[in-house]
């Protein structure tokens, strides 16, 4: 297990290094921030001064060297717009996004796994078929459209939930979280449902396919031959095997959930990282974009690592073969 862990961490570091290089190169090629930041009537000398202040007059490899050196010390540059550490600006918004993604993830598990298992146990029944056809809907409707419809229905028509913004927060372990206050939760609910709808459809389909497959396995037949109750077979024998693909996919999807949040946050004017990214791209605030991308890569890598470890925890075959290898 330890060897496995060390090897996986090594791979993760390599991924981060490669991504740092690509992100820096890609962003460097976009636009000229000096032109945006400077007064339109500024002369060449003034422009040069701004470029020098931002370090943009040096050759690209030198800028990259400085970037890496600073990054290693946790400094991903200073925002042109906020004149603050880019990382700090993003991290201030990180809890909002993470909270949104987390609640959405929770919702998609709570909705997706039970429905998927029911549909998998009785694939030919009316209930099973209805679940599967509804899940297709969840797949095909665009994210922003669902968001707008939910706003129309619950915020405009029924006036049950607020349409935009983030609610009251409380500080938990130094982080501002809104999901523990009523007001915060009511603000969180609509964007979280929007984000979760697609994922629950995905979870339903994976859980249904997994359940169907597992039910046909010899070990389920042997479990039945032992005289176990249907409940024990489903909750112990089937669920644990079926969860392996669900965990894998959901883990990877948590990353894309954070990325998807860009659209959802914009629709709901939810002050998270995604909205910040869109704003920063419009203003060519290069350090924020770079820091955002680096942070996202970092989060992706961490999630993958955690998924692999979780996977090893559920499935003894992974654990044991990796320990040997």
């Amino acid at each position, binding site marked *: 297990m330890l060897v496995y862990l060390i090897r996986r961490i090594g791979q993760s570091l390599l991924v981060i290094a490669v991504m740092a290089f690509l992100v820096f190169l890609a962003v460097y090629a976009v636009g000229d921030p000096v032109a945006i930041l400077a007064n339109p009537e500024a002369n060449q000398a003034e422009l040069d001064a701004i470029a020098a202040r931002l370090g943009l007059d040096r050759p690209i490899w030198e800028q990259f060297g400085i970037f890496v050196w600073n990054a290693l010390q946790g400094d991903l540059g200073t925002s042109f717009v906020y004149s603050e550490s880019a990382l700090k600006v993003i991290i201030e918004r990180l809890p909002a996004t993470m909270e949104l993604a987390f609640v959405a993830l929770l919702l998609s598990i709570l909705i997706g796994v039970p429905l998927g298992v029911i549909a998998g146990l009785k694939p030919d029944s009316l209930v099973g078929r209805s679940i599967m056809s509804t899940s297709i809907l969840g797949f095909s409707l665009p994210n922003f459209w669902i968001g707008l419809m939910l706003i129309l229905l619950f915020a405009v028509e029924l006036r049950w939930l607020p349409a935009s913004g983030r609610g009251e927060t409380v500080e938990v372990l130094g982080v501002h979280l809104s999901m523990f206050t009523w007001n915060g939760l009511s603000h969180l609910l609509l964007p979280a449902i929007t984000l979760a709808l697609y994922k629950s459809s995905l979870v339903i389909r994976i859980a249904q396919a997994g359940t169907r497959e597992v039910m046909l396995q010899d070990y389920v037949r042997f479990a039945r031959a*032992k005289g176990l109750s249907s409940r024990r077979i489903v909750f112990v024998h089937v669920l644990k095997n079926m969860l392996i693909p669900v965990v894998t996919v959901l883990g990877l999807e948590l990353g894309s959930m954070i990325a998807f949040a860009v659209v959802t946050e914009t629709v709901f004017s939810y002050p998270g990282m995604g909205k910040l990214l869109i704003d920063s791209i419009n203003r060519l605030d290069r350090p924020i974009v770079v820091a955002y991308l680096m942070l996202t890569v970092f989060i992706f890598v961490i999630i993958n690592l955690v998924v692999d470890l979780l996977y090893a925890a559920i499935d003894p075959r992974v654990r044991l073969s990796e320990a040997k290898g």
Partner: protein
Amino acid sequence: MTAPVLDVRDLKVTFSTREGLVTAVDGVSFSVDAGEVMGLVGESGSGKSVTGLAVLGLIDPPGRIAAGSITVKGRELVGLPEKALQKVRGKDVAMIFQDPMTTLNPVLRIDTQMIEAIRAHEAVSEKAARERARDALAKVGIPSPDERLSAYPNQFSGGMRQRVAIATALLNRPAVLVADEPTTALDVTIQAQILAEVQKLCAETGTALVWITHDLSVIAGLADKVAVMYAGRVVEEGMVADVLERPIHPYTAGLIGSVPSRNKRGRPLAQIPGMTPQLSKLPPGCPFAPRCFNATEPCHGIRPERTPYPGGRAARCHNPLNVPAADAARELAP
């Protein structure tokens, strides 16, 4: 005479498939006494597994038991609701399967899988159940059973996994054990060991054993009696020694001819020519007729009925090969 522990009468199992209704088991009857071993033999697709699963009430849609009766210790199982069947499975009738690599749940520890089998039927403490599981593992020859209990299936070899499955199936001292080719996937030497162990364990507890196989040579040393299946029917039945020595049905004779044995070494294995018939396209007469060396005109038109012969034997054939003499049978009879 005591009543048999397992009595199957006129069992008929059908599957509704895209090609129509398929009768996988058609009018199968047999009975097994306590401590007795019956071999159920036949080529692939002859309906052996379906028969075995039916005894456990494990025929799932699109299949169903269309007719017949299955009694265990005098209790009718056909038509019992699922809840009642769950109480019978693993308690009165147990089953082990062909592929030891897939028969145990890969994500659950051995102790979990054994203890649940006990606690499904008896209100005993976790600790007591665990001790019983450990003793059962020791009995089937698993070294250091205490440690092995907390291992996962993939830490065992195929042979060891099948031993675990056998130990699990016998935990509740079932009256009947259905063994569906449990050694086919294993090495020859391990096959023999496992065979001997199951035989010994069943004899100890008086468990009636139904051993399914397509290999008559396995039956020869193991079983008391044998039922030979072809296309969903029992075509010949009797005591093992009688059937192997003087088969009545040409199909049985063909199967014996295809058993590799010492005195025929070097010669190619006799194969029954032709293919097993498709159940949805059975000929109107004897299903074996297209492959039979002994077939005559009536074989193609009239389906042979079950005909009893002396010595507790029976066969379905218009042209029986060896008709046992009545007096010879009387000598054999106890």
